[in-house]
Every structure is written in structure tokens, then in C-alpha cells.
């Protein structure tokens, strides 16, 4: 439940993690398609991990946003310094 307590830091972390997931996901997919050799399912594993990271990026962002609009959290967020 502590994870759901959203502060200014958590919101920023959510955005940063989303950005990292998206960039790493894209890099892994590109690597899986172009660079990684087709050996011991490495290509498939790299592609799957990249795909999952890329899928989770918007999920994290949307979840953080949804938590931030909860009545209690919204009041806290209004006090954040941008």
C-alpha cells in the first residue's frame, strides 16, 4: 500500500522510469532485429524483453497519472514545486 502513496518524488520517478523503459525497450528491439545473433534463443529473448519494457512504459505512466488524480493525492500534488 505504501507504493500507492504518491508524492512529488514518486510522480517524477514514474516519468523517469517510463522514459527509461521506453528508450531501453526501443534499443533492445533494434538490437534484437539487427545485432543479436540467432544463437540459443538470444534474439528472441532480447526482443521479448524489449517488447515487454516498451509495453510497460505507458502502463507505468498511466498508472502514476491515475494514482495522482485520486482526491487525496491530487491535493498533495498541487503542493509540488515544478
Amino acid at each position, binding site marked *: 500500500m505504501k507504493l500507492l502513496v504518491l508524492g512529488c518524488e514518486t510522480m517524477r520517478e514514474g516519468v523517469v522510469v517510463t*522514459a527509461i523503459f521506453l528508450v531501453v525497450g526501443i534499443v533492445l528491439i533494434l538490437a534484437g532485429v539487427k545485432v543479436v545473433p540467432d544463437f540459443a534463443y538470444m534474439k528472441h529473448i532480447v526482443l521479448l524483453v524489449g517488447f515487454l519494457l516498451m509495453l510497460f512504459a505507458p502502463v507505468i505512466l498511466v498508472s502514476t497519472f491515475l494514482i495522482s488524480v485520486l482526491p487525496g493525492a491530487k491535493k498533495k500534488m498541487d503542493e509540488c514545486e*515544478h
Partner: protein
Amino acid sequence: MNKLKLPLFITRHVLFALVIGGLAGMAFILFLIEFDHFTSTEEFCTTCHSMELTADPYRQSVHYAPASGVRASCGDCHVSEGVLAATWDHFIGGKDLFNQIFGPDYDDPVIKALHLPEAAFAARRWFRAKDSATCKRCHVQEAIHGTRPDTLLIHQEDAKGKSCIDCHYNLVHRRVPDEKTFKREKWNRMIEQEHDLDPGAADVLLAN
């Protein structure tokens, strides 16, 4: 002349976030489309040796080399249309990679043949659940006239309430009987004969 004023809540930070977020969203969708496209190709699907065994009969089928030259690739039949549905199919399909790595040795033609019926039944259930949507990407029921006199009538009258897969299966991959009439015992004996195995060997291989 009145100057166009932005609402007060659109600050420099909000504008920055909107631009970056928009670009990231575009990159996300573009990569998703490219990923779905790449992983739907025959070239990608057959990177696993076990899939080569599945693809061999496909390469002899009319879906691979029709007179019209219109070739249906793996994704055309087995991946839903639309980026979200296709992404979901690939997400669910991730379990096949898990099974390929940690499951039975599907690269072995005998193991592959023994497990084939379950795979075929699952694929047919998927087609049925989607009302054969991927068939209908190319085939229009109202436009099926065929060369036999009753083809049109069958597709207009008898096909009511049915999906393409209810009648049209075993068109592309190795023939597998209908799930209702399938007999595991007979199938195992057939695979044993085909691969010169001792009687009962198929049951042992299947149990492992």
C-alpha cells in the same frame, strides 16, 4: 488586433511535457507497428527450428503458392489486425518462447508431431473465437462463387451461423483430425510407424 492567448495552466513546463510526451507516444506506436510487422513474418517465425517443421507443409500449400501469387504469411493468418490486437497476440505468444526454451524439445520432429494436435486445436479455437477474422482479411464470403455449382449456395445457405474454420481446416499445415473425433492412441501409433519407433515409445516421449 487581439492576440491569441494560451490558457493559464499551459506553462512552459506543460508545453515541454506535451511535446516530449507526444514524440515519445509517436515513437511508441511506430515501434509497436514495426515490431508487430517484423515478428509476423515467416522469416522471423522460422528462426526456431521447430517452426521450420510447421512451415514445411505450409510451403507446399495453396496459401503459400496460389495461382494468383497472393501469399499469406504467418502473421496474415495467426496475428489479429490492428496494432493493439496484434500487440496483444504477440504478448500472449510470448508463452510459446517460454515453452520452446523450457518445455519439451519441439525441435525433434517426433516430439513436435506428438504435440501437434494440441497446437492445432488451440489454433482452431483461436480462429473460432475471432470468428475467423484473419481469413476474412482476404476472403469475402459473399464473393465466393467457386468452380462447382453448389459452392455459392453452400457459402450463402449452409454457412449461416458458421465460421470459416468450422469447415476449412487442414488447409495449410500437417493434417490433424477434428478435436471431437481425435484419438490420441491412434495418433501415437501413427507417429511411431512414421518414425520407425518401438511400440509404446510415443507414450513415453509424450509423458516426459
